[in-house]
């Protein structure tokens, strides 16, 4: 491998990128812009869930309870319904996500300590929202019932401080209020920094599509030089985003950065090498840009989203998917970014993930070079 040859390919590719100004700007800004958009789309705290009420009890106690339920920002009272039919209609039309039905025995049951005469109906098409309503209604009901019962018990001479004797002390490390964007932004880095891999796949497929690959190979440049020369400009484009995104994360989304920036930079270069090599493999196999694009979506984009543990814990995945996730550079990088941003760990802990990334990068590059040779021979 000669540096001169490599540089020639890099220069050609950069010239090519620069000639098409629109594409050049897009390659540079896409990761950061998409990261911002996705964070806004995904890091939403559920609140203002519309609910309806149907109060069969109509007692002072049920009215007091209703007031408690709708006191916060979490649940909004859409309407006090008159009948079950009305609730059904509202659910079908999507006007409410949940309905609370207070049985006629509500106050009687509560005062005689028999339990809670409540029913909650939720719209199962959005279980997240419905589950949120259930949790919050349940939580308020529990507190309400506790207060009523302890005052009852006190009145009858039994001493209880609270009906919940266990003092549960929950703390969350690294992200004390469990703000979703704090772990989402570092996680999404592994998705958006994968976008240059699409560009690598496209630019290699483009040489096939335009039948310019043969010309390139007639030059004294070796295949591995050609492949590396193709990905270096995109590694640089990715690195530019690596430099910018932490500042956005800290200033805009209040994500802490506890680790070392140098370690982050170094591991990001290794990740880009591994991830972009995946794009290289696709580009070598596909003869047209559209096919390269479709395959990139299938093997880079969607697994990168769903199997790297960003949205969905890897532990809960089925065995096969858990195996696959190990071979995705994004899985290793998501652990690295979370570690560097939130936990503040350094290379002493992160080195096995770095080794895995280098290994994956070499395997992908090797595969690409091997098949590249066979296909053109």
């Amino acid at each position: 491998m000669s540096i001169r040859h490599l540089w020639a390919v890099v220069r050609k590719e950069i010239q090519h990128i620069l000639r098409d100004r629109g594409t050049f700007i897009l390659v540079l800004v896409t990761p950061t812009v998409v990261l911002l958009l996705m964070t806004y789309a995904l890091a939403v705290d559920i609140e203002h869930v519309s609910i309806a009420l149907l109060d069969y009890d109509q007692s002072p106690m049920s009215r007091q309870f209703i007031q408690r339920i709708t006191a916060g920002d979490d649940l909004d009272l859409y309407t006090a319904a008159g009948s079950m039919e009305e609730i059904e209609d509202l659910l079908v039309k999507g006007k409410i996500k949940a309905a609370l039905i207070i049985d006629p025995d509500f106050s009687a049951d509560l005062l005689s300590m028999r339990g809670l005469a409540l029913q909650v109906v939720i719209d199962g098409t959005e279980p997240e929202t419905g589950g949120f309503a259930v949790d919050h209604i349940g939580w308020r009901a529990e507190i309400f019932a506790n207060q009523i019962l302890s005052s009852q018990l006190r009145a009858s001479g039994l001493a209880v401080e609270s009906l919940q004797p266990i003092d549960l002390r929950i703390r969350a490390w690294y992200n004390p209020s469990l703000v979703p964007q704090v772990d989402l932004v570092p996680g999404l880095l592994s998705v958006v920094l994968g976008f240059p891999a699409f560009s690598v796949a496209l630019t290699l497929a483009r040489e096939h599509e335009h039948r310019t690959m043969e010309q390139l190979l007639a030059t004294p440049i070796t295949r591995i030089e050609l492949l590396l020369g193709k990905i270096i400009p995109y590694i640089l484009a990715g690195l530019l985003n690596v430099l910018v995104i932490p500042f956005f994360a800290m200033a805009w989304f209040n994500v802490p950065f506890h680790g070392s920036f140098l370690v982050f930079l170094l591991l990001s270069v290794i990740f880009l090498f591994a991830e972009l090599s995946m794009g290289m493999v696709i580009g070598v196999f596909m003869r047209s840009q559209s096919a390269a694009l479709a395959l990139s979506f299938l093997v880079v984009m969607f697994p990168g989203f769903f199997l790297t543990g960003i949205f969905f814990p890897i532990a809960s995945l089925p065995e096969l998917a858990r195996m696959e996730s190990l071979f995705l550079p994004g899985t290793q990088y998501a652990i690295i970014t979370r570690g560097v941003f939130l936990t503040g760990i350094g290379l002493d802990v992160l080195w096995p993930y770095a080794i895995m990334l280098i290994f994956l990068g070499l395997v992908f590059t090797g595969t690409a070079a091997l098949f590249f040779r066979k296909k053109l021979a």
Partner: protein
Amino acid sequence: MNKEFLHLKHDWWLPAFMLFGGALELLMIGWATSRPITNLPLMIWDMDKTPASRNLVISIENTGTFELVEPATSMDMIKNQMDRGKINAAVIIPQGFAGEISASAGNPILQVILNGAESTPAREAQRAIEGVVWALGEKITIEKLGVNAEQFEGFDFSLRVWFNEALNEAYFTTPAELALMLEFTILIFAALTFSREREFGTLEQLLVMPFTSLEIIIGKSIPVILVGLFDFSIMLGVVHFAFHVPVRGSLPLIFGLAFIYTLVELGKGMAISVFSRSQHQSFLLVLMVGMVDFMFTGYAAPVESMPQIIQTLAKFIPAHHWLEILRGIILKGSTIMDILPNVLWLVILGTIIGFFSLRYIRKALD
């Protein structure tokens, strides 16, 4: 139009992806996203080591949310594993826990540490542990008060779920993924139509042929529409047969509205296509436009929880209405009257987008 199909024949990978890629992806995503959160690694540090503490551990294990890892023997061990992201939560049962429970004025303390670096599993872990502890607390109080436990039913209210009785995650995720997948399929293939010609310099050849610009546009559109609707049928089949999601509404209504939605996205995709200098550029533009749409659809988070300004903007995003329509018809069996506002919005937006894209494309071609 014939030419478009001919182009497809040369490269068999592309038609294969066009026709089945969407369904394959949906199968993969649906499979990964339609399951509850389970098996979260949890570390327990039981300093008490009494029957009461062991019972608590068993109750936590029985929730099914956790997979217990090797028990901790020190705080350092918990910190070490938490730092490495190996565990999602840790429960610390202090010495004397059982004693405090049985003492009449006892104050049993239970410490829980969540790994905030993964907030979704952390919240799930919190929910599960709180549930166990509340149930246990209730039991203890009842025992202490000497109230007849049989008579006391506890504070669990009855819960009924409509449209998705078993709270199957697939009901929620797959119809939405189907909606998004149709959008991306159409956008990408529409966006590549003209940019490919432009990149190869064949657009000029096409324009000097005796076709009007409208004929060229229609010729280019038909394959995209056919592929889009074919993909949609297969994907709907995947949703129904592979994920067992019932289709409760009318099929003709679904397909009719899918056709309208296809036209809307086609207009957008072709406008991008005419605008772009290369396929690469049109792809990057689709990615951006698609992400903006994704943000407003309400797939990941309910739109009503977003700021008012975003809720207003969402009304002007066709994908937002399409998602509501599809969820409504598939899961709730909505009739056209139930979803009329969404349908009207979709038609109005479609007309506006279609009109302007057509004008823009024709102007660019002429």
